């Protein structure tokens, strides 16, 4: 077990390194292939009508004058050991993990990411509780009453939930229920206001996922209910309630747990559409801005963070799976 965790952690670090390299390459190499010069890249951060001297100065400031390998080395050094940055009159030490300073806003990337993490995490966890409860219970009931009115109604709703885009359901629900909009309040400031404000985004996001999970649970449950061990459980004389919960649900939930862990991991990297629709200042919106502004440090920070969450979520899911399913060996 410990060996497994260590090996996986090393693999995760390797994956993050590769992710950062690929992001770097996409940022620097691909536009170059498309004909963009370093000057043109730098010109995006100088403002209107830059002179050549200004462009050169900006290139030096952002480190764009250096070869890509040197730039990458600086980036890695920043994460591991921190870096010094000049702001004109003074320089400032950016402690590790230093993802650098935004090209655009000149602010350090890491504290902003940490700050926004709270919003995204609040959104993801709140919604996940809702969708897990709603999705699984609807899925189970649908499977047990397959073909009933409830089953059909639930599955049609689920189809709608899966196919309607968040910005549609989100804007509609905003217009209908909360035209004054959502403003994020930190859970540490006022837990009640926090929940009140996030309720609508939670429900909207959970609607989509609950729909997915209901379908997933229903299918899994139908499959499990046909398993031999369910027949065995009945043959033992177990009441149907116990057959469903202890035997069928347990087996159905285990693969769903995997999907759930990965979904959470993905969402923590930014619930882009939900955050945009509800104007929540989370990681997802940060990512969008980073990409729109061609802001490399921000893009790298957000990519690494998202990759980190996915890697960690994978690891946790694997560990949980081993706990849930005794057949799984960690090796």
């Amino acid at each position: 077990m410990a060996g497994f965790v260590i090996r996986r952690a090393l693999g995760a670090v390797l994956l993050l390194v590769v992710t950062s390299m690929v992001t770097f390459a996409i940022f620097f190499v691909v536009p170059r292939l498309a004909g963009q010069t370093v000057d043109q890249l730098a010109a995006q951060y100088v403002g209107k009508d830059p002179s050549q001297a200004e462009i050169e100065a900006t290139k030096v400031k952002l480190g764009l004058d250096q070869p890509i390998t040197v730039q990458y080395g600086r980036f890695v050094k920043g994460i591991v050991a921190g870096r010094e940055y000049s702001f004109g009159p003074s320089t400032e030490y950016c402690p590790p993990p230093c993802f650098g300073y935004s090209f655009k806003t000149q602010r350090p990337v890491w504290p902003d990411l940490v700050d926004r993490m709270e919003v995204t995490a609040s959104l993801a966890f709140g919604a996940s509780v809702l969708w897990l409860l709603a999705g699984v219970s609807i899925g189970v009931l649908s499977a047990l009453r397959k073909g009933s009115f409830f089953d059909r109604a639930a599955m049609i709703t689920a189809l709608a939930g899966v196919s309607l885009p968040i910005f549609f359901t989100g804007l509609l629900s905003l217009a209908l229920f909360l035209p004054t909009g959502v403003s994020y309040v930190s859970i540490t400031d006022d837990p009640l206001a926090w929940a009140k404000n996030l309720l609508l985004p939670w429900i909207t996001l959970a609607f989509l996922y609950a729909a997915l999970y209901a379908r997933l649970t229903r299918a899994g449950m139908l499959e499990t209910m046909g398993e031999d061990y369910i027949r065995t459980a009945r043959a033992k004389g177990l009441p149907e309630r116990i057959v469903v919960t202890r035997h069928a649900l347990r087996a159905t939930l285990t693969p769903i747990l995997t999907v759930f862990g990965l979904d959470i991991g993905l969402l923590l990297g930014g619930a882009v559409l939900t955050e945009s629709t509800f104007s929540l200042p989370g990681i997802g919106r940060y990512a969008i801005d980073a990409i729109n502004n061609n802001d490399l440090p921000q893009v790298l920070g957000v990519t690494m963070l998202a990759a980190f969450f996915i890697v960690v979520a994978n690891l946790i899911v694997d560990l949980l799976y081993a706990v849930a399913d005794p057949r799984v060996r960690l090796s």
Partner: protein
Amino acid sequence: MMMKKTGLAAVVALALGVTACSSGDDKDNGGTAEFNAADASIVNQSAKTGGTLNLALSDDWDSIDPGNTYYAFSWNFARLYGRALTTFKPAAGKDGLTLVPDLAQNLGEVSDGGRTVTYKLKPGIKYEDGTPVTAKDVKYAVARTYARDVLPNGPTYFVDLLDAGTYTGPYKNTDINAFTGIQTPDDTTVVFKLKQPFGDFDFLVSSPQTIPVPQAKDTGAKYQEHPMSTGSYKVDTYEPGKQFVLSKNPNWDSSDPNRKQLVDKIDVKLKVNAEDIDNRLLAGSLDADIAGSGMQAAARSRVLSDPNLKKNSDNTFTGRLWFFVMDEKVAPFDNIECRKAVQYATDKVALQTAYGGPIAGGDVATTMLPPTIVGYQKFDLYATPESKGDVAKAKDALTRCGRPDGFETKILLRADRPNEVAAGEALQQALGKVNIKAEIRSVPAGQYFTRFAGAPEYMKGNQIGIAFHGWQADWPTGYGFLQQLVDGRTIKAQGNTNVQEMNVPEINAMFDKAAASTDAKERETIYGQIDKAAMEHASVVPFLYGKGLLYRNPAMTNVFISYPFGMYDYVGLGKG
């Protein structure tokens, strides 16, 4: 004493509840709430204090550092926490285009044949921390904008205009005396040394780049975390992408005639979804959209169809001109008659529709200067019936051009701007009627001026005849609007905005003449002449004076459209 009384009144009114609402409908209002009321008058005039002004922005600031920002709303808003040497008169309508002294006691005193401009600072003006503002701080504020590597966003007018040699800002060399572009003989006198005369200099110093910055407090790129306020409000917090909160500046000089200090707090939510902003406006939880670019389609139709909402809205000029140009260096547009053929063939109503119609798009344009710019004169050199194009006249011009059977060309536009794409298609169709076959080439907006339209080499290399363009002035005069567009000496290899490559010595000379003139009336006349001369050259086809539908929360007081900024004026707003 007065302040105290008002405060007490507010408390009483608040306690009475319902009365507070009815007392907001004072009869002595400059204008009552009706459609477009804030365009010509000040709506809900009131001296009532207290409350929070709730604003929102679907985007974010480039920087809140007054020396490092270049958005219109930002220049409008920066006046809340900083006083530049001059500013615009807080008045509705054309009156608002008038410059008035702000930090300075007077407008610029010009001497040395226009190469020296002197401002005397008002006495007793302090920063939010109580330290007095000196002339050196104004000099420092301008000096730091020379450090383009640290503060890249703002305009470069001072850099280009002031006689400062190769000065590179105060960060590499902290001795401010190295900056010769401004002299400060004493603590209240600011003397600008210009390379050549510049008639609109008073307009130039209204930009936030002259808002004083104390050198001791300057942290370069990080100064935006807390710029020192001289205005009626000071920065509490600025969190990029989240919010920007200001509160009353206790050390604001209340004799300031250009500002008010009514609300207790100004709260700007950032990066709010545009539709969400509209919803919140109509629900009353927001007072105004700070960008001032107009509501989205859904809310627009709701507002226009409901008289109760419509009366709280204004359909105002944004100060923006939408136009397309023909590159005079790309055949056959090197021939003025071929350019005229396009002038006549263009169906401006179709282009207007593409941009969202008269309310969201704007009014059909026939001049380069929009009506809210100093120097605007109404004329139409290429009039066509109902502005829908004139095939016969266009064909005549084609014949004179030696291309009676038409020709082929390319239209360059920004792919990620749906309006522009639609307009390009409308233009393509109109040109097709006179056998001009235009092929549309769409490129990303982000690099439009660095790589495509703004790079003459690209235009010529790819034989791009026509390119779409949009423009807004840095200051509301003909010079501010036109110089970067039609002065041939501004053509550059990258970031070129004179996309049509118009280089007419007579026009260039008129800019010099206006710059040298000390007579505002004379300058205004020259601007009109430049506009006409440029239009006669026929390579620019203006089609829309941009407009937007703005919504003002009826609870807001002292609301009017600032013509220079093309949106609500933010420095006098209160809450009823």
